[in-house]
């Protein structure tokens, strides 16, 4: 393994709170390493900042395995950075070159108000889920699991949509700040499963209405969401959602 040092110049969005002005601040890390993850680079920088008596950069993170969906940042203008199908926590410095300048900013969308630095409030996603992102069953009293046969390819398609980690990259990348991919992924998961059929119509209407209420924009088929999705969820979900919606309201 090579352990050669890299120098990385960073321009990071710093903003103390939602009502304070924010700006890009320059930092240089001289002892980065290609095996570091991008978040480890920020950890490294934060350690140096705190040792100098400065306040560290705040960012959300948790599992660092690309599955919890906590991390959220624009890296060089791209949600989660340049590597396809990769959340920021799994992006490694080998994707950058020695001497590169990297710009780091928060998700920007009306429905995701900023909390501090790179941290935003994504409660709007939970509200969309609460509006209908479930099968209305209580605990207990079900038939044997194998009594509901599901064709393998249908189950696989449902899974492809269910893989969403709720990070919000789709919103951040969309010129309209639309949450269509997020919302459609859940709707499409259930549309492909018999368990989801009973509430099919009610669900799509409730979730789409909630999405609008939260202040997300409409989808105008840019496809940026699909390009940045760390789970590579297909934009066909949005087509499915529209079909479901039309069927529900007609």
């Amino acid at each position, binding site marked *: 393994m090579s352990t050669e040092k890299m120098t990385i110049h960073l321009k990071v969005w710093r903003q103390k709170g939602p009502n304070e002005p924010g700006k890009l601040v320059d930092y240089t890390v001289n002892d980065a390493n290609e095996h570091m993850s991008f978040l480890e680079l920020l950890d490294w920088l934060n350690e140096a900042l705190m040792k100098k008596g400065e306040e560290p950069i705040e960012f959300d993170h948790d599992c660092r395995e690309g599955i919890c969906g906590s991390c959220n940042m624009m890296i060089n203008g791209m949600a989660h950075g340049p590597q396809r199908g990769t959340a920021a926590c799994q992006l490694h410095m080998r994707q950058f070159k020695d001497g590169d300048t990297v710009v780091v900013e928060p998700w920007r969308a009306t429905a995701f108000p900023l909390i501090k630095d790179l941290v935003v409030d994504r409660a709007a996603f939970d509200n969309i889920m609460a509006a209908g992102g479930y099968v209305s069953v209580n605990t207990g009293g079900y038939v044997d699991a194998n009594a509901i046969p599901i*064709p393998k390819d249908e189950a696989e398609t449902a899974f492809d949509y269910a893989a969403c980690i709720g990070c919000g990259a789709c919103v951040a990348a969309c010129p309209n700040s639309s949450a269509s991919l997020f919302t459609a992924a859940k709707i499409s998961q259930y549309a492909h499963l018999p368990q989801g059929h009973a509430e099919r119509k009610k669900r799509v209407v409730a979730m789409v209405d909630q999405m609008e209420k939260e202040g997300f924009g409409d989808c105008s088929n840019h496809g940026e969401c699909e390009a940045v999705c760390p789970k590579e969820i297909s934009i066909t979900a949005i087509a499915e959602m529209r079909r479901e919606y039309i069927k529900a309201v007609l």
Partner: protein
Amino acid sequence: MEIIENSPKLVSKIPDGPLTEKWSKHKNSIKLLSPANKKKHTVLVVGTGLAGASAAASLAEMGYNVKAFCIQDSARRAHSIAAQGGINAAKNYPNDGDNVWRLFYDTIKGGDYRAREANVYRLAEVSNSIIDQCVAQGVPFAREYGGTLANRSFGGAQVSRTFYARGQTGQQLLLGAYSALMRQVHLGKVEMLPRREMLDLVKVDGKARGIIVRNLVTGDMERYAGDAVLLCTGGYGNVYYLSTNAKNSNVTAAWRCYKRGAFFGNPNYTQIHPTCIPVSGIYQSKLTLMSESLRNDGRVWVPKTKELAEQVRSGKLHPNDIKEDDRDYFLERKYPSFGNLVPRDVASRNAKYVCDEGRGVGSGLAVYLDFRDAIKEQGADTISAKYGNLFEMYEKIQGEDPYKVPMMIFPAVHYTMGGLWVDYNLMTTVPGLYALGEANFSDHGANRLGASALMQGLADGYFVVPYTLGDYLATDKPEKVDTSHPEFDKIEKEATERIDKLLAIKGKKTVLDFHRELGNLMWDYVGMSRNKEGLETAIEKISALREEFWKDVNIPGDANYYNKYLEYALRIADFLELGELMARDALVREESCGGHFREEYQVDGEAKRNDADFAFVSAWEYLNGEGERLHKEELKFENVELTQRSYK
């Protein structure tokens, strides 16, 4: 230190009668609360992983008013989400001879006979309902072409009883429980309070009646009162600094309850998972697990000699150029009947041995997990269908293609079997305080089998606590308490003072510096193998480190806004206390069992249990600033014969 044999304070409340009938009998005999009375009660659920989300949703469906808390920005991000491999159930769909008894037996044997028979049997018994429940919710499990559910085998078992959803089983199960929870939020039965960290437990008349939480966005202290508190806050593997746990996983809520009177059970029992991506440098912030399912097809090996290993490490020799005769498939060699599928503790320890012998690869602290033969036999497409996402993840992190070069793996801390002591009803020694999932000690003994964590979390939340909580409330009939009670003032003040004290230190070392040092001590002395001298050293050094922390930690900023490093400092302060208790617990247990390997007690490198003297649960009681007292709960085995575990 005072030791209490057969402690009268540990009333396990295991029902009488034959093992197979205990749970049904118990359910028939415990009290019920009418729907009209349920809605008069408020339950505080802390943590929204599998245990917390399933419990909160189920209780709300039954009519209770639930307040649910999590430290993340959304309930969906709890660390259960990262579980990869699967969930066990005794469905016997593959017709390979599985049943509830076998799942029970494998789990109790896998735990090296250090768990309660009755709890483990109940777990096996409800396992099938969990699968039915999850399928009803629309969890997209893997399926066969005929539309039925698919199963695979997992370490420590000789049947295929593991249900899975690609390599993202935890994610799909959690999203199922989260969706049920959000439905109750929508119905107004659950109030969801994210970005809140529980900093203390409030007791009134000796019973759990509320919690103090810090709002992580505003920094405000908040109080919540209820009739019961369910702690579903996961494990404490992060005491080792590097672990597969999420960065924010911590022991604080459980530790605060310990300090308020809940006994801590078997704190030393830690699972070191064999298949993790090795450490690459000092900047490393966490370790990534590669699902154990990889061991179904991957073969674990190292070069036969130290000399060959040295050549590989220096880059002079490529692993693919090492001849078959020069490879040591050490698990297959030593354990011919289980081969690469031996339980986690055995696989980890053997990887350590070969690295200790100087035969490790990579940095010296790694062994190969090789898919060459599987690809040859089954084709790259089949292997990709089974493990594609794991291979991709490996390549992202490691920068090497596992289809072409053998993966490198090394053991890492993954799960803690220890946790708050609970009775059969999942209640701790504090009335009204329950612990569910990884936060309790109850079902996995000294070693957890693969695909059993998800099973336990959901069993506790969907199918155990919804029954047992009603019994407590119906019997106890708690009187109304609200947050203006003076106990809330007192406990909140203590939490605030603790924060102020930390912020006032303004020392030189960062929280991370302390965490890393603590982790090194824990890994070196309370890790994969332990001995008396090392454990005594650990106790001394951790205590010194703790003292240094309270004098020299540097926390940036202030308490009245979003401040992640303050959160972090509060958690490390508790880890610095827990680490010492873990060492004490390991010191007392003069035997080897499961994940607890004492070098003094072994036969040819295999753990040597001592059932005559150590078939008990260690439950530690905190004595207000004066150390701790050990209570023992004797484990009685009436249905299984205690044998030396053999996977040979």
